[in-house]
């Protein structure tokens, strides 16, 4: 049995009562070496650095220092989070040689807390996608069934936790890129409130939507990692300066009088029957735990996907303009003049999905189209937020499926980007409204694939969200299931 089968709290206790970070890290590295060829969760493990960091944590612990509960725990980072001296590629040919001269804010926080950074994980190029197939280094596979995709864009991080390569991982969520792969891979994924976690050092896809968040085997793990990365950072103007609760300490306290909202819009056409059944069951679990179930409507949610693709692509077209081959990143070898250098470098450096979104965004921001597309999308975004503000006056959390379906097969959707975009139908609104959201395992399909349950809460209510999710987790055993691992 793998060393990572236990709960996060048991893992923390093991480290606090004698198991060394070096041995834990080594066992993770061994697992990666023996099994990641089949999964391809990692762009690159960081073996030497991880072992050195682990030894240093062990030294501090032996010297009697009081360490953060996360100290010594290996963690995998999505490869769009900058790590000083270690290539950060965004799974793009454009940045295949890019070595950041600085750590992202979350990486600094992790290092200070003694977490062990064990490697960089695969993603859809520049976080654009829902399957981790749009990667310059090839797709990641779902550990539950390698014919299936792990979801995306943080598919590498989700798969790394599901495959027990690392007990914890960080991803980024722009339209569901943490929650959807968490649901596909049967792990817990938390997207914090926009502004809760500094984006400094997160390679931008869509700045007004991007947020870094944790993956873990259980809700406690997500709480542990959230505590470390959350909080104000003056280097990110959009990071919010307000106190961060200690979720690790409170996550096991059940909420009394919990009001769970269920929106009719979350049970529409295209929802897989097994996913729907699992979600309905989850409602009953909450009812049995004493929660009140409240029916809701989120009337503008039907516009969420259209609004999302306008805003995200517009911002992406601007954020990715810096990859021009002039200062860093891929530069074409053959070009005849400056304009040609830009064209050739970008044509060679970016994959098809990135080009598609850059073109969409460039079009939406063009003179003559701006008002009809971008400006209108901003207005509808406001209406979507208003829907949620009204809803959260009546309920504490909103419950829904995370994804309308369990993990699809690798290649199944690659020819149909619009169908792929619909995989994010339940997750996107939280990004548009800036809300925290979590996906927890809530069932298995008849074909043996995990099903995820999504809970959303009002802005900065992560503590309540985590406690509500933990109540469900404790009442069920879905989080304790693992895929069969081929050793």
């Amino acid at each position, binding site marked *: 049995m793998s060393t990572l089968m236990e709960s996060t709290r048991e893992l923390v206790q093991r480290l606090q009562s004698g198991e060394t970070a070096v041995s834990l890290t080594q066992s993770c590295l061994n697992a990666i070496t023996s099994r990641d060829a089949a999964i391809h969760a990692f762009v690159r493990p960081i073996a030497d650095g991880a072992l050195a960091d682990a030894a240093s944590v062990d030294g501090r612990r032996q010297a009697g220092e009081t360490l953060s509960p996360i100290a010594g725990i290996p963690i995998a980072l999505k490869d769009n*989070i900058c790590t000083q001296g270690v290539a950060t590629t965004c799974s793009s040919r454009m940045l295949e040689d890019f070595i950041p001269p600085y750590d992202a804010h979350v990486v600094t926080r992790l290092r200070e807390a003694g977490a062990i950074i064990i490697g960089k994980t695969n993603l859809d190029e520049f976080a654009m996608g829902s399957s981790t197939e749009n990667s310059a280094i090839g797709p990641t596979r779902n550990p539950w069934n390698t014919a299936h995709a792990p979801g995306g864009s943080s598919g590498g991080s989700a798969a790394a936790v599901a495959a027990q390569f690392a007990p914890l991982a960080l991803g980024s969520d722009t339209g569901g890129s943490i929650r959807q792969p968490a649901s596909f891979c049967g792990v817990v994924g938390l997207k914090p409130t926009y502004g809760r976690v500094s984006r400094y050092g997160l390679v931008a896809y869509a700045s007004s939507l991007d947020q870094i968040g944790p993956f873990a085997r259980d809700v406690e793990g997500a709480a542990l990692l959230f505590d470390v990365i959350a909080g104000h950072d003056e280097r990110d103007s*959009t990071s919010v300066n307000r106190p961060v609760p200690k979720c690790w300490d409170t996550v096991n306290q059940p909420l009394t009088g919990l009001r769970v909202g269920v929106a009719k819009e979350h049970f529409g056409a295209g929802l897989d029957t097994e996913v729907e059944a699992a979600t309905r069951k989850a409602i009953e679990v909450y009812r049995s735990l004493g929660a009140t179930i409240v029916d809701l409507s989120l009337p503008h949610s039907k516009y969420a996907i259209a609004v999302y693709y306008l805003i995200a692509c517009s911002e992406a*077209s601007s954020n990715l303009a810096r990859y021009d081959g002039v200062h860093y990143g891929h530069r074409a070898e053959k070009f005849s003049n400056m304009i040609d250098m830009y064209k050739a470098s970008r044509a060679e450096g970016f994959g098809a999905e990135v080009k598609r979104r850059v073109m969409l965004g460039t079009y939406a921001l063009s003179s003559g189209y701006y008002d009809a597309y971008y400006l209108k999308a901003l207005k509808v975004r406001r209406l979507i937020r208003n829907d949620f503000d009204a809803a959260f006056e009546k309920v504490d959390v909103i419950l829904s499926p995370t994804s309308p379906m369990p993990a699809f097969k690798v290649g199944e959707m690659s020819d149909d980007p619009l169908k792929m975009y619909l995989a994010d139908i339940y997750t996107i609104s939280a990004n548009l409204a800036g809300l925290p959201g979590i996906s927890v395992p809530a069932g298995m399909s008849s074909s043996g694939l995990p099903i995820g349950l999504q809970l959303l809460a009002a802005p900065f209510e992560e503590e309540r969200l985590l406690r509500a999710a933990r109540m469900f987790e404790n009442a069920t055993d879905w989080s304790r299931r693992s895929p069969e691992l081929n050793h």
Partner: protein
Amino acid sequence: MANYTTIIGLEVHVQLLTNTKLFCSCPNRFNPDNPNVQTCPVCLGLPGALPVLNREAFKLSLKTAMALNLELARFTKWDRKQYYYPDLPKGYQTSQFDLPFSSKGYVEFDMPSGELKRVRLIRAHLEEDAGKNIHDESGRGADSQVDLNRAGTPLLEIVSEPDIRSAEEARLYLEEMRLLLLTIGVSDCNMQEGSLRCDANVNLHIHENGETIPTPIVEIKNLNSFRFLEAAIEYEVKRQLGQWEKERKRLGDVDAPKTTRGYDPDRGVTVLQRGKEGAADYRYFPCPDLVPVVVSEEELAAIRATLVEFPSARRRRYCDQLGLSAYDAQVIVNQGNEFAAYYDAVVAICGDGKLAANWTTQDVLRQTNDRRETLAQFPVTAEILGTLLSKVAKNELTIKAARDVFAALLAEADEEKPISKERIDAIVTEKGLATISDTGAIDAVINAVVARNEKAAADVRAGKQQALGPLVGQVMKELKGADAKVVRQMLIDKLSS
């Protein structure tokens, strides 16, 4: 030749004098000899780096807007202006598009005719400067290079209405703008280093058969001296007039788009650059990495409290309260804040604005020019000059004697002797320059001179005024340091009694 009016609008770019750049903490310094040393992940546009507004730059912008009579927005935001160029590392310039922090102001200045000219301002907004492309000028075709030391420098763009009517007016406008910016201390306005530069939009209104026909607008880019600004516009007006007579193209004709030209100072001509506006779509949109700025009344009040007297107000004060001519007021104020402050300090001690104006605009200016000294280096401080002139004002010294003291002070300074206001009395004594106010002593000399010059005295008595001069001269020569006016009056009194 056609009857026409020249129509000019200026876009002035001013680098603000902050310690650090607009959105990162790199030093804001002109440093062309060490390229790319003042850079960081933010101003290099590295992936994941984020901008944070330098509030000091924003404060200097507000201060400038106050000096330019601009209305201040309480809510302002940042937009991305997107285009590809190697000196623009992010592929966009962070600027302000539809909600600039200020709009609708004006600048006033005196024309040589004495007429007060007002140029209205459309807006002023804050943005980041780009880096600099460095091309191989040897003609050997080596790769171009990019220096990003300048990238992210806070840059204020001040856009005027097309209210300017001649190349000279354009120069006077820019000079007044520079004076204003220097006075409030927001920029060093060093045009050679590019901290003050401007683009001129120029076209003509042709008056023909009772009709006014605007010609296509030409933007002359990047004019970095007053001389080039004036020369470029003068050239452009002539060129456009010739074009009009040849092609008769009007503003708005489909085959006559707005064009961009550069000024070639070696040949004294403007040269067509790339086609503009029609083709460029900057795809402005709000920068999602920066939060909008909300300006509070307290903040505005705090900035207002730091404002010094603006040049126009100072000129008015000199004319209204100190009795200076408009010309003298202009000369003093246009020398800049340091000079006007020197003048103010002299007036404060001697109490005579006109006297102080004569001395500062003539003696002090001449001497600092001849000696190639700044006012700070000039040995005769405002305190010394003020003390010297107060003696003139009190009739203790004649103008001539004061000039002698002034010269003596400078001579001593040249010998590296320390000089101070105390040296004035000593020099006066040593050289016997004091005005003789003892009328008894003057009287005695007058009597002696009259006695020796009976003929001249008789002529004066007979009404021949021209005979008075030589008598005054003789008395003055014997007395040294007597006030000629007093001597003259005493002689008249004596000879008419």
